């Protein structure tokens, strides 16, 4: 994490990859103990990763990282349970409409992050997609979208922050 904060992208990526299975196990356990389907687990994992990334400056580099990670994972888990809980409270009338539209099945399968990615401004969406899904480096994405590297960096960062904000605001 220290290397990641110092800007070593490779090291940081390996750390996040190593954390993912742990986060996934924690998310599954949390959802199961709340009596919810673990199809939401991956959404919780992605949301937690986004929070770890966007809030990484809030980790004190001299403190052990375990409590910090646990606190973030717990916060995101509680957040999700609260939101999903609220969604269950939706009156039956609303469900009837959705069911009549015949779209309830596919939207349930689309991950939250994907759904919100569609709502981002075009510039941010293209950059996030190029880097994440197509695996382009900052330089490649800049060349492909004919932007400067700096602009790509800014769009990527804003796009990720906007994604997290949208995930957060959902259901309120």
């Amino acid at each position: 994490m220290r290397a990641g904060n110092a800007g070593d992208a490779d090291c940081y990526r390996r750390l996040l990859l190593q954390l993912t299975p742990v986060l996934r196990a924690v998310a599954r356990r949390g959802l199961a103990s709340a009596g919810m389907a673990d199809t939401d687990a991956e959404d919780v994992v992605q949301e937690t990763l986004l929070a770890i990334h966007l809030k990484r400056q809030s980790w004190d580099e001299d403190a052990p990282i375990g409590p910090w990670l646990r606190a973030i994972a717990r916060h995101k888990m509680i957040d999700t349970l609260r939101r999903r809980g609220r969604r269950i409270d939706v009156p039956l009338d609303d469900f009837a409409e959705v069911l009549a539209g015949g779209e309830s099945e596919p939207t349930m399968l689309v991950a939250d992050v994907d759904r919100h990615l569609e709502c981002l401004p075009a510039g941010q969406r293209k950059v996030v997609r190029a880097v994440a899904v197509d695996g382009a480096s900052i330089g490649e994405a800049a060349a492909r979208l004919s932007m400067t590297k700096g602009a790509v960096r800014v769009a990527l960062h804003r796009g990720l922050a906007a994604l997290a904000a949208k995930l957060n605001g959902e259901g309120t």
Partner: protein
Amino acid sequence: MKTGDLIRALAADSEVHAMPPGGALVLALIPGVAIALGLHFAVLGLRPHLFTLLGEPRLLCKLCLTFSLAALSGALVSRIGRPGADIGRMTLLLAIVPALLVAAILAELLAVPAAEWGQRLIGSNAMFCLKTIPFLAAAPLVAALLALRQGAPEHPALAGAAAGLFAGAISAHLYATHCPDDSPLFVAAWYTLAIGIVAAVGAVAGSRCLRW
């Protein structure tokens, strides 16, 4: 989007840095406190003969109480944005301030005849105190909340209340150099109420704008 894809995007974004919570707080407070100071001197000003009165125990006690509250709550705010940080000890330290206040009240009750207690408590400008402390606290409160947004407070409303306590204490310390009521009885009633108002506003604002 697969989780691996997301991680790739996060790693590519690792060069953009935000300020750590402590630095963000200091940076935000500079304009925040400058605005409060500006308003203080523009609208209120120091009370006459402030510096010759500094030896007066009641005034000194008032200044020390507000200053220690500001310092301790400031230390709390700089930590409350760090998930997993131990804030229990900070909160306990903060309890020193009400303990000191209680001691000051007891001393005052012993020093002043009972017939005068009521007049000391009401003072000469209680309503003005209630209005002015929140007024001066507005800019520091906004600054502290903006700084906390950089962090990740686990309990947004609580963090907002801490920010309000901090802003209220800064403001009360400034106001204390203007206010002619020095009795600990007055401070305990009206300063506490005014700071409480700011803390409540901070809690409401925090529960809305500090979620992450």
